[in-house]
């Protein structure tokens, strides 16, 4: 019987023929912890009686969620992480290097066929590189640090086929918001999603990461794509390592298949306070905003900043709007400087913050006040997400965010692309 992508990856990592619903203890290729989850991982590691890391070369710690530290409590936990990493030989990306979900792919250690776990729910991002990567908690991570293995129940697969071409001014973020609205916040719970079709193939690698990043917002365990020449050329800029693409068998068994024609899609936003509360931008275009955030593991890549700069070039942010930009990595920030993108954005009125998670998780870098409205390129708009439960968060594409920064209200970016 044929296998899906995830069944093949679980099989190759467990020396067995795996199908949906099988229980597997699989070898893990790469393990990531960030500063919100690693301190508890260290605690669990000690409780388990852990001494050695199974292979320190396969582990990365990233300090990105609160970087630089906003208070002494966080500083103590960062110190705990750094000390543990030094002692165990774990490579650590410290303040200013960027968001874990950009840095892990930039290591080159993850590619087609890899099996990766990370103590962060958006670890599903690397599915865009044809890897099975998924978020786990701190205790699972500690178990993998000791054993190099993790148990999984092999998931069923939901195949999403996207036909057609995205119209101008409509981006991968609009597509993934549309899909999340269709599938709903728990419509893919426990499932692996395979994204395929002409519209997915047409996307750049940067744009593909945005889609896989948000698979967890439908409840999915993974958001996988096939590997093609774009995948390999992206990887080649970071590593010489050779990866073999993993394709689903023609007779693979799918739990469910959904097909969409994307050629009529328009820019979308997710309204407060759930990610599947999606509507076309036009329906909320009179909404006054106070802050715009461009960045995060969803949309802080070079292409995202380039799109925003294209709209903001020669224009100014509305005087009543703060535009905050958090590039996803130091490399991206440097590239944005070299390309003149950073200059354009700063001239328009943008405030750059340290490459990392920025204001997305509500600990620093732009906590909104009571009643304020934020449009962000992030992946979550839960009440209180940005540190104030009385604020309102809309999610949109970098283009929608940039256009909104100019007008001071939620704005269809196509108004600026004519």
């Amino acid at each position, binding site marked *: 019987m044929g296998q899906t992508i995830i069944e093949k990856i679980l099989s190759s990592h467990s020396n067995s023929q795996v199908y949906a619903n099988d229980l597997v203890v699989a070898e893990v290729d790469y393990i990531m912890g960030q500063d919100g989850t690693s301190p508890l991982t260290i605690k669990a590691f000690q*409780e388990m*009686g852990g001494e050695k890391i199974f292979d320190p070369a396969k582990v990365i710690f990233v300090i990105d969620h609160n970087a630089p530290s906003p208070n002494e409590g966080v500083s103590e936990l960062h110190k705990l992480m750094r000390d543990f990493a030094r002692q165990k030989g774990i490579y650590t990306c410290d303040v200013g290097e960027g968001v874990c979900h950009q840095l892990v792919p930039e290591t080159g250690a993850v590619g087609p066929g890899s099996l990766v776990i990370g103590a962060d729910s958006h670890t599903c991002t690397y599915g865009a590189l044809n890897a099975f990567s998924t978020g786990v*908690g701190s205790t699972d991570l500690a178990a993998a640090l000791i*054993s190099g293995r993790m148990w999984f129940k092999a998931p069923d697969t939901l195949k999403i086929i996207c036909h057609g071409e995205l119209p101008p001014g409509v981006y991968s973020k609009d597509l993934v918001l549309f899909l999340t609205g269709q599938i709903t916040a728990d419509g893919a719970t426990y499932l692996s999603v395979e994204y395929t079709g002409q519209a997915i193939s047409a996307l750049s690698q940067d744009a593909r990461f945005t889609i896989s990043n948000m698979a967890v917002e439908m409840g999915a365990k993974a958001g996988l794509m096939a590997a093609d020449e774009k995948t390999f050329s992206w990887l080649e800029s970071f590593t010489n390592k050779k990866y073999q693409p993993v394709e689903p068998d023609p007779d693979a068994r799918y739990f469910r298949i959904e097909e969409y024609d994307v050629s009529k899609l328009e820019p979308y936003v997710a309204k407060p306070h759930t990610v599947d509360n999606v509507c076309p931008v036009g329906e909320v275009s009179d909404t006054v905003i106070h802050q715009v955030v461009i960045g995060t593991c969803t949309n802080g890549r070079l292409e995202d900043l380039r799109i925003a700069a294209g709209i903001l070039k020669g224009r100014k942010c509305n005087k009543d709007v703060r535009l905050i930009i958090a590039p996803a990595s130091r490399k991206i920030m440097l590239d944005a400087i070299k390309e003149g993108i950073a200059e354009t954005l700063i001239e328009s009125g943008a405030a750059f913050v340290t490459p990392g998670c920025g204001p997305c998780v509500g600990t620093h870098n732009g906590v909104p006040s009571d009643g304020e409205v934020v449009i962000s390129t992030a992946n979550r708009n839960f009440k209180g997400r940005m540190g104030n439960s009385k604020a309102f968060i809309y999610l949109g594409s970098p283009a929608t965010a940039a256009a909104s920064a100019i007008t001071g209200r939620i704005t269809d970016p196509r108004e600026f692309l004519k």
Partner: protein
Amino acid sequence: MFFEGNAHKFGNDINTDYIISGKYKFKTLNMVELASHVMEDLDPDFSNKVTPGDFIVAGTNFGCGSSREQAPLVVKYAKISAVLAKSFARIFYRNAINTGLPVVECDTDLIGEGDVLEVDLSHGFVKNKSSGVSISIKPLPGVMIKILNDGGLSAHFKKYGGFNFE
């Protein structure tokens, strides 16, 4: 495992930011301190309303959102004995079992705010003492029963030195 207590009802899609906000959870590993903020953005007074042994009862997709293990831990440290929901988000579900917090999938429409419940995990039933209705529960996968019975994944690893599902 047998528990008795009152039900505190919540809706669908209760995410981990609601269970414990990011603005607190990054600062400390002191779960007692964090537990005073459990569910704060939905009900600022919630931690004071809980009598030890009570239950959180919710709709679908409980625990969606981030992988923060602080979420099941603060529920446990708030002295909640178990979470009952129609369905759970997968990372929260794993984290709860790994940290020894019982999670029960059942039809929570049969439970009202303040109802007195008996939850018997050994025999696999929930009884709503206020209404007299018995509610069937979806059994945990065998692996998770093993981890929960060992007292969580840390205790399981300490006992066996690795995964042992034989």
